[in-house]
């Protein structure tokens, strides 16, 4: 059992993650899972979450205390008042109309391995606040031991999770990140900024516009349980995103101008990138957030239902090379 200071530290880690997601709504999908890191408590929570989810399914819906059936609590309700969403049990037309991956039946091969992602509703905003149902996840792609799952949540939200498919991987997945499927989704209608808003996602961001993506990288080298740091530096980061039906390729542009086109399969792209360095994006000793003028180091371009979309992806500051 961890000592008392480790237990305090574990709670601080969980809180740090939740606060970050609240401050950077799009980080629900952008946050590099490298930062999600560590330790036994997350694993313990996963077991607890699994029990809760199992009980929920068995009871036909609501099993988590304070769960809000079919709706999405505000960030404030979720973070500070302990209100959780009940996992989505059905899908709405806006979720399935443009995503073939969600129109097919769930099979046993779709199951997310235990520990692959963070699914504890207390720290995984996509599950606890948005109602992502991991039991309804579809495995969209699997490559080099990394899996990408797509699943529904409440109010027309669609969620993406990326993580290792096998135990013992040096990678640690994050919690699912969610976005409104389309601008017509209920969640898109009341997306807003501010402490009392349903601002898990920024207004105007939708899956249809390519705003739902996530990354997974090797775990934090500071963790004593991990590999030596020099080994980490050789491991690639994987970035995955969800795109609507009809999008067959996506082009990624790196800082410096290099571009490469990748296939989109099962509504998902999965790309490996090797970190090459970092940019000085801070104004003074790293005390402030990167300025708006900080250059994008990853830019995605695709032809979607609303025309050609080109937008920067996080994280800022690190430069990349294509790993494959």
């Amino acid at each position, binding site marked *: 059992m961890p000592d008392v200071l480790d237990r*305090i*530290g574990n709670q601080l880690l969980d*809180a740090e993650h939740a606060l*970050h*997601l609240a*401050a950077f709504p799009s980080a629900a999908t952008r*946050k590099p899972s490298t930062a999600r890191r560590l330790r036994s408590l997350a694993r313990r929570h996963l077991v607890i979450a699994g029990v809760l989810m199992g009980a929920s399914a068995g009871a036909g819906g609501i099993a988590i205390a304070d769960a809000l059936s079919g709706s999405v609590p505000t960030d404030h309700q979720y973070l500070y008042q302990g209100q959780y969403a009940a996992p989505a049990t059905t899908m709405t037309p806006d979720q399935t109309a443009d995503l073939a991956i969600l129109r097919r039946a769930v099979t046993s091969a779709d199951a997310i391995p235990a520990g692959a992602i963070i699914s504890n509703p207390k720290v995984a905003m996509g599950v606890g606040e948005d109602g992502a149902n991991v039991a309804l996840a579809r495995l969209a792609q699997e490559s080099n031991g990394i899996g990408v799952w797509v699943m529904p949540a409440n109010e027309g939200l669609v969620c993406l999770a990326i993580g290792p498919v096998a135990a013992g991987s040096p990678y640690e997945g994050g919690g699912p990140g969610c976005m409104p499927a389309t601008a017509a989704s209920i969640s898109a209608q009341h997306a807003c900024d501010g402490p009392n808003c349903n601002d898990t996602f920024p207004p105007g961001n939708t899956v249809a516009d390519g705003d739902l993506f996530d990354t997974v990288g090797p775990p934090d080298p500071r963790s004593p349980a991990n590999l030596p740091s020099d080994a980490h530096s050789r491991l690639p980061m994987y970035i995955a995103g969800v795109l609507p039906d009809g999008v067959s390729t996506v082009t990624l542009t790196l800082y410096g101008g290099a571009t490469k086109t990748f296939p989109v399969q099962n509504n998902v792209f999965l790309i490996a990138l090797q970190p090459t360095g970092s940019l000085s994006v801070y104004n003074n000793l790293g005390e402030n*957030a990167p300025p708006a003028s900080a250059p994008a180091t990853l830019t995605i371009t695709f032809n979607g239902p609303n025309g050609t979309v080109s937008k920067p992806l996080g994280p800022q500051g690190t430069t990349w090379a294509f790993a494959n």
Partner: protein
Amino acid sequence: MDSRSDRLLLAASRVDGAGFDVFYRRHRNAVLAYHAGRVRDPELAADLTAETFAAALVAVHDRGRELPGEPVGWLFTIAQRKFFDSCRRGRVEDAARRRLSFERLELDDQDIERIGEIADSTDLLEHLDRYLPPDQAFAVKARIVDERDYSEIASQLRCSPEVVRMRVSRALKTLRQVATEDHDA
């Protein structure tokens, strides 16, 4: 060992959602030792330590506030305020932990023994000297850690109490520029 500065760690926590754990691990023993030296009760010391870091974390993620220029002095200013507030109210402050939905700490005999070990083995003054610039280290040690009055410090330094007061005042002002509101988090 992570070589990033405390300021960079807090900035990374705010921007990337990671970094506070290293800050915590770097200073947790010192904060625990600080509280243990005051409350003389391991469970209260653990609660105050958790509350101190929880308040610091809330403040770091409040984007309406600047990050502290001197994180260690700022951290101990929060620790001191949490201690004073707890004394005034007759119970350990828990506002920040409630805000972050912390679970209640349950301590067993092993934990209590561990807290005693940490408190006994941690050289708080050495820690402050290591992580603070001289002015801030002096001010924190004299006024926050030792809670000494100005005349006593002046006697030791062989100067007038006014000189000491001004010196400490300047340093504490620097430390509290950010911490003033943070303890309410």
